[in-house]
């Protein structure tokens, strides 16, 4: 009976082996498909750009999807070149792939040859485990996870939208989460604000949220901004963040945040909820419309009841908060298509999503073509939004 070593030599005798430099040339120049047959944990530690992961046990099933054309050049990679040789044998002899090769010496030889490898050097072993389901996604990968860990995200409101949003962003490993809220946890919050709990009724929401986040993920630094955003503090507070998440419960804050965000060119992921309905859009200054392009003036109070007055389905708040978190992740990792120029409506009773187009308003007083930059001396001197929105219906 042949020993394992002999049999690997026999296999290697039957298949084509190529050295890393030639493999790289074929992949980059000729568009050969590179398939990594190692295990996910090995991939997490280091892998090659453009490679597709299909561990040994799955490669037989995955290859048809990765290379529907049996004549396509397929180059296989593992750690030292043994598993990839066996996989090449299987693909060629059993599955009829005509043009398969294995990289001799695997990723170790590749690295020794001084060729580029995407190393997970920014992630600790604990982080590799914690975020493995992210890093397995080619769109995120270690690189994307490092961007998330580097991101600074400010949540305006730690309530119906902010609670689910902050919780998931913390789990996802957003490195810095700022929380703005001046309220304390109330029993009536707990039907939807899952980051708080019964024992913390009466505790400031920012503190309660910080406790939950720290228990969930020690990677996240939580910054509490206990108070409300006002013209006097907003620029200072938001300037330290990359992405702003608007879950405010009132129009003055929404307009104030918009104006300050446009000024500092910070993206705002904005959502609002009422009863069974939610709205969400992502405002990236000058790339798409701003909040004022969408809503030039706030509605009168009778058309803008609060959740406290009108009620809100807790689960729907969660859906909208998580849609916000989803937008934040995409912006932070630089993947996918953010909701720029699109307003998404969610009707939870009908389970219907409606998408509306939102264009930049050339006459927008804040981001329009003729809108003047507020001079440095007037930084922080925003109009008096409290009075602006206080009562009398605003006509055309």
């Amino acid at each position, binding site marked *: 009976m042949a020993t394992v070593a002999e049999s690997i030599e026999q296999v290697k005798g039957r298949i084509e082996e190529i050295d890393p430099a030639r493999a790289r040339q074929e992949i980059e120049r000729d568009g050969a498909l590179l398939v990594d047959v190692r295990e996910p944990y090995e991939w997490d530690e280091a892998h090659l750009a453009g490679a597709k992961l299909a561990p040994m046990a799955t490669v037989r099933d995955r290859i048809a999807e990765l290379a529907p054309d049996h004549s396509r050049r397929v180059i296989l990679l593992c750690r030292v070149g043994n598993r990839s040789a066996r996989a090449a044998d299987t693909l060629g002899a059993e599955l009829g792939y005509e043009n398969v090769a294995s990289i001799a010496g695997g990723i170790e030889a590749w690295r020794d040859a001084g060729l580029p490898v995407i190393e997970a050097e920014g992630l600790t072993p604990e982080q590799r485990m914690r975020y493995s389901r992210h890093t397995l996604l080619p769109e995120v990968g270690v690189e994307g996870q490092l961007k998330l860990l580097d991101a600074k995200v400010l949540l305006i409101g730690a309530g*119906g939208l902010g609670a689910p949003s902050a919780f998931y962003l913390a789990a996802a490993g957003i490195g810095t989460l700022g929380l703005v809220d001046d309220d304390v946890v109330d029993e009536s919050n707990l039907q939807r604000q899952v980051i708080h709990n019964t024992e913390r009724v009466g505790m400031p929401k920012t503190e309660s949220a910080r406790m939950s986040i720290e228990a969930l993920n020690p990677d996240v630094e939580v910054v509490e901004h206990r108070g409300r955003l006002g013209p006097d503090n907003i620029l200072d507070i938001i300037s330290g963040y990359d992405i702003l998440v608007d879950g405010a419960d009132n129009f003055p804050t929404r307009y104030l945040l918009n104006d300050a965000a446009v000024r500092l060119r910070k993206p705002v992921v904005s959502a609002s909820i009422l009863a069974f309905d939610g709205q969400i859009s992502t405002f990236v200054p000058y790339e798409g419309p701003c909040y004022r392009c969408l809503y030039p003036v706030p*509605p009168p109070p009778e058309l803008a009841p*609060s959740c406290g007055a009108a009620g809100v389905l807790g689960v729907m708040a969660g859906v909208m908060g998580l849609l916000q978190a989803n937008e934040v992740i995409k912006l932070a990792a630089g993947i996918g298509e953010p909701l720029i120029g699109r307003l998404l409506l969610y009707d939870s009773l009908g389970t219907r999503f409606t998408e509306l187009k939102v264009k930049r308003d050339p006459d927008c007083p804040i981001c329009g073509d003729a809108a003047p930059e507020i001079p440095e001396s007037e930084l922080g001197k925003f109009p008096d939004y409290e009075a602006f929105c206080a009562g009398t219906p*605003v*006509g*055309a």
Partner: protein
Amino acid sequence: MTTVKIPPVLRSQTGGDAEVSAGGSTVGDVLRGLAETHPGTRAQLFAESGELNRYVNVYLNDEDVRVLDGLETPVSDSDTVVILPAMAGGAR
């Protein structure tokens, strides 16, 4: 008849209906038809001048009528008109 989607804040004026049908050849006709059938919506949709209130966004299908021909935008029976006021609910 064109379908009009009614936002939550106006549903008390339409007997709770989230969608109503209204006839007319332009967006303005359709909305005036709505205000005729459900008079409670009139003051919230229209200013005294007959213009749409600035705080009410109206979409024909997925397009803001402000970038079309406003209230003069023609509609057909297969169109949907969406009425959308801003909402501010979030934190509390």
